[in-house]
């Protein structure tokens, strides 16, 4: 049975191994749908960890349902946190782009108007998001013919609209 320090080390190591495997897989395969692929990746590594632990193939592994439960309760949310942060990797954040652009202007700085021009040129954030949504199967279409929601996209839009009402976020953001 692992003592709590070992359990903490195992939980962190499990997630770290999954992250390293993610780098190797993404360098080799470059999946088109990042979010779906990440969900599958971390689920596979979860099952692999459980299977290896059950088979006694790990030199250091939790024992019993409760220790595994604690390890999973670390691994699962850590993986979901990484996946939710991945949208920043997948596409530019307008705020981060703007800070980077102003920083690159150095001491002379940058006017708001210059920033607008830059964002209009390279920061076509709407198009980036439409393309990412299309890659994730949420919308269909292209620049020339316009865009429609897929069935998955409609579900996402309805869930988001419902959350907006429940949390009264209509005027936030």
């Amino acid at each position, binding site marked *: 049975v692992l*003592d*709590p*320090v070992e359990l*903490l080390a195992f939980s962190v190591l499990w997630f770290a191994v999954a992250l390293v495997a993610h*780098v190797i897989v993404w*360098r080799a395969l*470059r999946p088109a749908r990042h979010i779906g692929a990440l969900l599958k990746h971390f689920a596979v590594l979860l099952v692999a960890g459980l299977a290896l632990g059950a088979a006694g193939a790990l030199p250091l592994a939790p024992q019993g*349902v*409760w*220790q595994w439960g*604690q390890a999973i309760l*670390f691994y699962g*949310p850590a993986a979901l*946190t990484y996946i*939710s942060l991945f949208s920043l990797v*997948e*596409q*530019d954040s307008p*705020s*981060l782009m*703007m*800070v*980077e652009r*102003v*920083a690159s202007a150095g*001491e002379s*700085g*940058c006017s*708001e108007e210059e*920033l*607008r021009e830059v964002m*209009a040129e390279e*920061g076509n954030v*709407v*198009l980036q*998001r439409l*393309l990412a*949504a299309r*890659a994730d199967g949420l*919308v269909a279409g*292209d*620049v020339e*013919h*316009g*865009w*429609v*929601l897929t069935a998955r*996209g409609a579900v*996402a*839009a309805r869930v*988001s609209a419902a*959350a*907006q009402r*429940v*949390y009264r*976020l*209509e*005027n*936030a*953001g």
Partner: protein
Amino acid sequence: MSAHPGEVAMLAAPLAGLVSMTVLHLLASRLGGVAAHLIRFILAFAVGLAAAVAVSWTATTSLTWSDRIALLALHAASFVALSYGYFTFVNLTATSLRLRLLRDMLRATEKPIPTHQLTARYGSNEVVGIRVERLVAWKQLRRSGGRLRVDGYPLFRVLSLLIGCWRRVLFGDTRPPTLRRRR
């Protein structure tokens, strides 16, 4: 398999925190004002963290100090990760441009909705105007003499550099993958 009651409580600590935070946040959202979205979440997070720590600490009284602290760290980290996931879900609903586009398409009468309609709605004027005010208020940008400047390495610049490094590790390029696939 039987479990010591303390083990069940230890496992429940992050979940107790999540439930406390969610209930409080929902209540505050329904009963409180509309404006203080972030403040509501911070308060709910603090209460949730206190609940997780309290359950973890109470359930581990029979252990040594080092074991208690290790478990407390594990439970607190699990709770923080859970609450981050929760916050992301709620916050994206408010701020995500991608979700706004999906909601716009859901409500649109004209289908397919033309690209220019969407880009005009969220053009650079809106994107820049709102964000500049926010970035100046958050001290990520400094405004002086009608120009914007960055002093040193504020948080957003560090984040941007880190994301660029991570993209290079994953894709061998600091640009986002969507830009390289654009058609």
